[in-house]
């Protein structure tokens, strides 16, 4: 049964004392100036936790959760805070567990291609630790230099190479969890495929609403023998998107296929100097991997499709340095755009790939309607759009228009047969839009799954489920009532 919290604000000093005695004062932050740092993530949302804790062990996490439950205070987990849907924000206040200090790689098993890591390990550090053995961790969000694996698991993160290798869920073998009552549980199996329900698959991508993840067994992937990175340059956006459609239709699945439109690539080029021609309308960054023979013939076939769609030029990176530079341009694009406006709103929608030309035209029209130049830098190969709206958060009217434009674009994705989010998660950004896709029956079932593990909404309340549908929790926390509203 949902509970109503009425213990008032500010946070119960006894809880804070309890946390300090559990973890030591150095691992607990409760001063306003500290809390302010944790009221943001990569999204446009904002919500302030009431106390921040830094556990070092699974036992710490379990004790924190038990203590919070005793005081009926919600708990939210957080990795590096790079998430883009408000998943790691304390929408109802309460205790924020930051996993930054649980950042050890516990084991590497080259023979079975597994690594056991703590949730605070940075995504790229897994690859760095295993690349000597010719292995890597395949999911590669653009924030992989800073985002943590715990956050990746919670959000089922993607990245450019998801096109060939799948999302985070395809690379997780087992999890250790702390449940909302503080119990420690294990799901999945190290060598895969244990009989039983795929609980591991359920918890990955559940956005911290079912359990906290305290240890992760990841699957490692063997590096391909050959990689070819192509940059195809176009004078018309339509030609670039038609190239993607034709590639898919011909059954060519590259390892990655990214698009940057002209406006975006100019901003990137000014900042990164990746070699994107400033006068072009769009570029495709396409990577193929595999055996030498396969990579070469695929690259050849792709170049042919680009040329038949009027590519101005198709370049192939000659060495790792050139390849890294092209990818640096892609991965740092959002940073580059940060130079153009005080803030940007990175959207995340999915469409069937064949609808790419139409979708880009409609995004352009939406931008015009709301008075924004909307840039596009996205995973074209799997139809995962990332339109970027630049805005000034101090201008309330402009912010509201940005939100409205975003909603129109997401609705357009759904109307084309697509989905709300390809890799950023629902969080508190799109929970109200969930009704575009799901029926009451769908919500009922999801709610029953939620309540099977997190019956009191003690973990990450106010996420995924639309609050307007009566699916939300009845928890009310006085001090947190104002939190969780958009800026």
């Amino acid at each position, binding site marked *: 049964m949902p509970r109503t919290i009425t213990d008032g604000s500010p946070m119960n000093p006894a809880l804070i004392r309890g946390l300090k005695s559990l973890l030591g004062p150095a691992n607990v932050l409760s001063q306003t100036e500290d809390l302010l740092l944790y009221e943001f993530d990569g999204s446009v949302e904002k919500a302030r936790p009431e106390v921040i804790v830094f556990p070092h062990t699974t036992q710490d996490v379990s004790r924190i959760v038990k203590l919070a439950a005793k005081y009926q205070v919600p708990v939210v987990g957080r990795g590096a805070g790079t998430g883009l849907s408000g998943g790691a924000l304390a929408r109802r206040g309460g205790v924020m567990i930051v996993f930054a200090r649980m950042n050890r790689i516990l084991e590497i098993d080259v023979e079975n291609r597994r690594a056991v890591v703590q949730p605070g390990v940075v995504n790229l550090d897994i690859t760095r630790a295993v690349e000597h053995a010719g292995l890597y961790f395949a999911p590669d969000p653009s924030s992989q230099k800073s985002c943590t694996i715990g956050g990746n698991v919670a959000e089922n993160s993607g990245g450019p190479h998801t096109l060939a290798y*799948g999302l985070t869920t395809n690379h997780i073998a087992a999890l250790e969890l702390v449940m909302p009552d503080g119990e420690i*549980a294990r799901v999945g199996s190290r060598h895969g495929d244990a009989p*039983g329900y795929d609980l591991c698959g359920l918890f990955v991508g559940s956005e911290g609403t079912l359990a906290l993840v305290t240890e992760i067994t990841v699957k490692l992937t063997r590096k391909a023998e050959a990689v070819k990175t192509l940059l195809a340059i176009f004078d018309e956006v339509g030609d670039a998107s038609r190239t993607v459609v034709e590639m*898919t239709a011909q059954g060519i699945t590259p390892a990655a296929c990214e698009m940057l439109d002209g406006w975006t690539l100019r901003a990137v080029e000014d900042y990164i100097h990746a070699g994107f021609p400033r006068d072009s309308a769009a570029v495709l960054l396409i990577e193929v991997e595999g055996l030498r023979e*396969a990579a070469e013939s695929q690259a050849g076939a792709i170049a042919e499709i680009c040329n038949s769609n009027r590519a101005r030029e198709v370049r192939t990176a000659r060495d790792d340095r050139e390849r890294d530079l092209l990818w640096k341009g892609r991965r740092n694009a959002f940073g580059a755009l940060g130079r153009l406006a005080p803030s940007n709103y990175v959207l995340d929608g*999915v469409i069937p790939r064949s609808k790419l030309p139409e979708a880009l035209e409609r995004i352009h029209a939406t931008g015009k309607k709301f008075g924004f130049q909307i840039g596009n830098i996205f995973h074209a190969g799997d139809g995962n759009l990332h339109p970027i709206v630049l805005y000034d958060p101090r201008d309330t009217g402009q912010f509201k228009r940005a939100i409205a434009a975003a909603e129109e674009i997401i609705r357009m994705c759904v109307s084309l047969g697509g989905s709300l989010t390809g*890799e950023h998660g629902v969080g508190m950004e799109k929970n109200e839009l969930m009704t575009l896709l799901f029926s009451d029956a769908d919500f009922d079932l999801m709610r029953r799954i939620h309540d099977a593990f997190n019956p009191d909404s003690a973990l990450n309340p106010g996420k995924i489920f639309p609050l307007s549908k009566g699916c939300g929790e009845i928890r009310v926390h006085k001090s947190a009532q104002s939190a969780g509203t958009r800026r």
Partner: protein
Amino acid sequence: MSSTVSLPTRLEKLVGSDRVRASETALQEFAISGRAPLAVLKPRSAEEVAEIVSFAVAENLAVVACGSRSKLELGMPPRGYDLALDMTALRQIAHYDPGDLTVSADAGLPLHELEGVLGAKNQFLPLAVPFFETSTLGGAVASGIDSVLRQQYGTARDFLVGAEFVDGTGKLCKSGGRVVKNVTGYDLHKLLIGTLGTLGVITRLNFRTFPLPELRGAHLSTFTALEPALDFHASLLKSGLPFSNLELFDAEFSALLAAWQNKTGGAPKSLSADGWKVVACFEGSTAVIERIRRELQERSERTKAAHSENIDARSAQSLEASFRGAFHWLGRSAPNVAVLRIVLPRAASGDVAELLSGSQPPLLRSAFALRACGVAYVTLLADEEADAANAILQREVTRLFSQVEENKGSATLLHASPWLRERVGVWSAKRADLQMMQRVKQAFDPHNIFAPGRFVGGI
């Protein structure tokens, strides 16, 4: 249960008399381990499935959804079984977008029919499972049975992008979508895979499709001992060469495979009943096929294979089909057979093979095959159904279960006589996460009407 006498009549009222069968013959066709349902229903639509499930909830009837009924023996026999849902009338392709490499089809559609439709567009679904010729999409997914192509394409979990199903409250639900990348909401469609119909009745499945490979090839090496065969198998896995399948097997498996091949298509000559064999299957362009063949030849010479040969494309295809159906023909290769599926860490799989290749218990032969994805199939064969043979089978399966547990693996009894399954169970050990699984079951099927008792831990 309320007034079972008039159950068929009441069901006829619900869905029409042409959708209900209750003759003894019809009921026996749907029997599981000798237990027949009270009625067989053949719904025409997902909505009708929902109506039937609502009826079952109201009347407290246990429901088992069936496709082609080729794998009904998987899992434990259900504790309750009142209604059989014959899903084969739901067989439409709802959407097929070749340009998007996605397809959405009804659960009762046979795999081979979908294969034809996709093949016309030079695409396919890498769900290469036993009973491929008869299996329905829903059955292939709900059984969770291995695809022989999983080394290259993964399991259904890797290409199922959405599903529609009726939950245990009689509501039509959906999860995922029709796009290849999607993280909206809980991944409930993936949860349905391999659940033997205990969470819901699958009505529609959305998949990503794949381009058909240009060419196929295969290569067969024979070794006189297990060790070099395992080394060779392991070296191929580490080589980075893309194999669609890699099978290592013993002489008995080879003999059974050859016998089956001769029945269906003609076995390669060197598929003799001696030594340890490694078959590598691969696909790609001419250049890729040539490269892999060359490397296989060199590697098998280096590892001192007793014999090594390239297999032509036609034989390769027929060999792959035999591996695909292995669970089917292994189960029928002797009067009394137990087929176990074992997952172990790579290093430990060899231990099981070694154990089997050692002293054979009397009255029993065993066949062993290790697949690249780390799954081993152990088949125990007895030439009689007598008590003595049963007792030995029981002892051997129990011993394998405990050995697998010691090695931190898992074992599932895929095929066995009802006698044996009743005594040893189907799964090697109790799961530590059983309670969490029960919570999932409770959420999906709060009245416990879907195939009760058929799944792990009595779920």
